[in-house]
């Protein structure tokens, strides 16, 4: 890598491979000293062609494909899709199934926010908070594993309902885990709001005012930290949210510290909701039948992922396979905000600001199947080695 030194410009590339990014994305920051004067983004390093692939699979198979768009918020993708397909087929999942979906959604939100807390702390060089929040995240991952059988792709949904039931034993385990997490979360709240060294990295950093967030159409906690009360769970309740309403958490600050506070407050809200769902779990069936062929129609399914509004557009054509599945993930909305307010900030703050929107590269990259004509699909180890030798000669 050579330095491009011109009188004004000094470009610092971050990514596609960079310790700050656990996923590949490419950013170029033009800096003067430590201050950023320009920013561009380039994605696509983890393209899997999922939108195209959906057109080649039947409705059920797509559920699992779409669940794998994101490793962190897998359940919410499956939920958005399942709700959409159910709307297309004009069936409704039974109330107990909806409640279980919502329960897993909230558990997943806890998992995602805890993970984010750790990552953001790590970006700020606060590894101790990172280690502790991830240690405690294990609690919720164990709960999800006990509930669904898997730690990441829970595969709780099926079209028309859910696979798993929550019995009393599990409910007790969840309550216990949640109470422990609540206690820990209170401690983290204290850390991120009072520790001076940490506040030094978050207070008044990357501030986005209400008007800016509104003009850039930010979604999710990023928007709510700037005071925009935008939450699909409250605006257009889906699944069991009509029966279990949530309080929208907002914060005025708009800076990184506010984003921490909003996410941690959302954790409290999730704890409350989980208790409520467990206490008032509706009884009844777990799923209904969804026809294999779905008549021609189109629908829009919006849900609130941990990172913000997740948008699904589904179009059926009367066959077993969808005509078009469009996924717009929250990260893509929030990229625009980062690229806009990065200018004028310090390079040292950039990793934290990037982490501040909780970006998910896998979510942003998924549209296109790549199968190059002059390139075999499977490279053996020897091929790779030869290619390496050729390339670096």
């Amino acid at each position, binding site marked *: 890598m050579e330095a491009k030194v011109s009188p004004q410009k000094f470009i610092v590339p971050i990514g596609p491979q960079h310790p700050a990014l656990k996923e590949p994305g490419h950013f170029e920051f033009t800096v003067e000293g430590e201050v950023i004067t320009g920013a561009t983004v380039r994605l696509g390093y983890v393209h899997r062609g999922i939108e195209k692939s959906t057109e080649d699979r039947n409705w059920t198979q797509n559920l699992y494909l779409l669940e794998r768009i994101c490793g962190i918020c897998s359940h919410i993708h499956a939920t958005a899709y399942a709700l959409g397909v159910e709307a297309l087929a004009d069936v409704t999942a039974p109330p107990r199934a909806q409640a279980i979906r919502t329960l897993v959604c909230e558990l997943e939100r806890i998992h995602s926010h805890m993970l984010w807390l750790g990552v953001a702390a790590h970006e700020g060089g606060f590894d101790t908070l990172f280690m502790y929040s991830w240690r405690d995240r294990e609690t919720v991952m164990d709960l999800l594993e006990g509930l669904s059988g898997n730690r990441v792709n829970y595969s709780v949904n099926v079209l028309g309902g859910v696979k798993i039931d929550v019995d009393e034993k599990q409910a007790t385990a969840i309550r216990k885990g949640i109470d422990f997490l609540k206690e820990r979360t209170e401690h983290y709240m204290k850390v991120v709001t009072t520790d001076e060294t940490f506040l030094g990295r978050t207070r008044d950093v990357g501030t986005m005012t209400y008007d800016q967030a509104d*003009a*850039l159409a930010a979604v999710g906690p990023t928007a709510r930290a700037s005071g925009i009360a935008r939450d699909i769970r409250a605006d*257009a309740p889906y699944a069991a949210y009509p029966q279990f309403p949530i309080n929208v958490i907002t914060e005025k600050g708009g800076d990184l510290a506010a984003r921490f506070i909003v996410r941690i407050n959302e954790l409290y809200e999730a704890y409350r909701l989980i208790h409520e769902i467990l206490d008032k779990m509706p009884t009844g069936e777990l799923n209904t039948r969804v026809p294999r062929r779905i008549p021609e129609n189109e629908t829009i399914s919006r849900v609130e992922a941990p990172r913000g509004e997740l948008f699904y557009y589904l179009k059926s054509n009367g066959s077993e396979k969808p005509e078009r599945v*469009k996924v717009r993930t929250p990260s893509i909305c929030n990229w625009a905000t980062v690229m806009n307010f990065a200018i004028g900030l310090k390079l040292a703050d950039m990793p934290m600001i990037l982490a501040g929107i909780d970006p998910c590269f896998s979510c942003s990259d998924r549209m296109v199947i790549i199968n190059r004509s002059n390139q075999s699909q499977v490279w053996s180890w020897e091929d790779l080695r030869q290619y390496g030798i050729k390339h670096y000669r």
Partner: protein
Amino acid sequence: MDITEALQTAQDLLNQWTSGMNTPDLSRLDVLVAPKDLKPALRILQKAHWGYLSAITGIDHPPVPASPDGKQPAKEGSLEMLYHFCEGAAITTLRVSVPYTLPVIPSICEILPYATLYEREANELFGVTFRGAPNTDHFVLPDDWPDGIYPLRKSFTGFDKPQQSPTDRGLPSP
């Protein structure tokens, strides 16, 4: 603002720029807009502060040959761009349709700067040109993706299978 009220407002706002409206379900309003009317329609929405652009969905309608009995005439291939605006639970979708022969839509970036990512994506994947777009670099596809191949069009079914030979397994030349 409740849903019906919001949709009514949108309907009133967009009335003069549309060639047809319908409400597929309670929370949605579909508005057909000609490409040249897109920007004025958006300006009106923005001025009234109605919602935010949630996504741009592209849909490919491949050409349909005339049915052999001649009952259905041949249909030209077209691309449809759906601009979804959300306000609370209400969704207004501006549907802009352009033919394969002239896939050009005016860019809306000067009104909504954040639309650039969606436009770049639609441009790459569907081959719709957004006239006046500030940035048309590759966004999601590889840099060496061949021109004129738009993967989300129905006509794209993958590249030809590579030819396997024992000596050269098709390694790209460095």
